[in-house]
């Protein structure tokens, strides 16, 4: 039996003001799994995403990611946890003051890898999402779908063992959503654990579904 790569037990997140976004959430994800986290807006998907990425800490319960307890992780430890995660944000968080290529370079430069190796890996990542010919463009010039692909390239360039995406297909048409999902699947096939938060029911054919409802795991 392998150790789960993500493990939540009894996780509650309460925001100042008393609103409880998550209540006693427990579930586990094994390495190499492909999991959908579903639920309506406000069900707590984004909160869960932020807890796993150590952007926020649980009010109670424990969040274990790759064996590390995110709740008790020191500020120094957070960057090293995040280097092991590929994050695709709902609001994308692309930097529009630099090229597509430089956006993908950022996670590599941050870890202090040599420029040449980094450039090669950045191009490989752009190639995987089909954006290699746009590397000099500014992200502003990309279509919505291309921007989403750029986010994926940035998330996987570090070869993370876990890929987490928050509503990656929310503002794409069905056809484009399929292309994006196909990319996640291909990463999953080479062993990356994938967790996708989505309210989009139609893309859930393959993979395990964890449904959230009002901050609780629905049966």
């Amino acid at each position: 039996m392998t150790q789960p790569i993500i493990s939540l037990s009894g996780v509650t997140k309460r925001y100042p003001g008393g609103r409880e976004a998550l209540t006693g959430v427990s579930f586990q994800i094994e390495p190499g799994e492909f999991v959908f986290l579903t639920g309506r807006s406000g069900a707590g998907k984004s909160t869960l995403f932020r807890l796993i990425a150590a952007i926020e800490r649980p009010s109670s319960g424990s969040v274990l990611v790759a064996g590390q307890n995110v709740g008790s992780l020191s500020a120094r430890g957070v960057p090293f946890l995040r280097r092991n995660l590929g994050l695709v944000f709902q609001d994308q968080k692309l930097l529009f003051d630099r090229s597509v290529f430089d956006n993908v370079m950022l996670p590599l430069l941050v870890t202090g890898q040599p420029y040449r190796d980094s450039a090669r890996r950045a191009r490989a990542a752009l190639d995987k999402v089909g954006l290699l010919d746009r590397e000099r463009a500014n992200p502003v010039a990309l279509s919505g779908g291309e921007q989403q692909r750029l986010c994926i390239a940035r998330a996987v360039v570090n070869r993370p063992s876990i890929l987490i995406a928050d509503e990656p297909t929310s503002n794409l048409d069905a056809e484009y959503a399929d292309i994006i999902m196909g990319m996640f699947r291909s990463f999953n096939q080479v062993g990356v654990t994938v967790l996708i938060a989505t309210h989009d029911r139609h893309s859930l054919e393959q993979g395990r579904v964890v449904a959230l409802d009002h901050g609780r795991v629905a049966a």
Partner: protein
Amino acid sequence: MTAWLRHHLQSLQQTLARFAGSPFASIANMVVLGVVLALPLGGYALLANLQTYAGSLPTEPQISIFLSPSWRAEDSALEAQLRSAPGVQAVRFVPRDAALAGLKRVPGLGDVITSLRENPLPDAFVVTLGSADAETAARLEAQFRALPGISIVQVDSAWVRRIDSLLKIARTAVLMLGVLLGFALIAVTFNTIRLQILTQREEIEVSKLVGATDAYVRRPFYHEGVLLGVGGGLAALGIVQGALLLFNTDLARLGPIFGVLPVLRLVSLPDASAVLVFAGLLGWLGSYLSVSRHLLTVQPH
């Protein structure tokens, strides 16, 4: 170790690129710092010049004794009295004709002297004292004044000491100015870095989300602070050296009118390096304070 060095190089590159991206803003900042630093630095340079000038003046304590016209050179009793006074090292007699001849040699005064119908100068003794302390000089001054046939007794080293103490006060003033304006430099970098952090909010946030350590995020701002400080120091040196050179050309032009005037020495290389290092340190301190204060507010959300 290599990763650490690479970080530094990358961050330095970024900072330089940022400077190059908005050259006017960066240069304006450095000029502001330069002006701020030029004040104490200029004061220091002028003081150093005054001090060497004062140092070239005779500090050996002398007492000039001007005799009344009724005194006759044949009366050697006075000289013997002067010689025997305790604390006196040497006594030199300057006859009035010799004094006049000496004045004639001073450039510009020759014509005036020859136009005089008679020699207005008195005979004089120049007494050199054995020690430089003010007490001895004062005691001897009083003692000589009481002697018959003497009109004026003048302690020549007194004004040198006065200059010396004035210089000391000026040095304190320059030091205070330097400390105050050092704070100003810290404040200016503090604010500049604060603005920089605000404009780079997004980049900082995204960098943190993709695994940047705090040190990585802070580094470019430290580099920027140091570069700002050093740039300001260079500007200050430019301003001060330029001003000194300008003064020197003026002094050279005035030379023929006033006789030999001292040439101002420029800020020396060791002093200049010290200024740059110091300015860099202050810039670093300003950015350190700013980063510690403001970077905490930039967190991914």
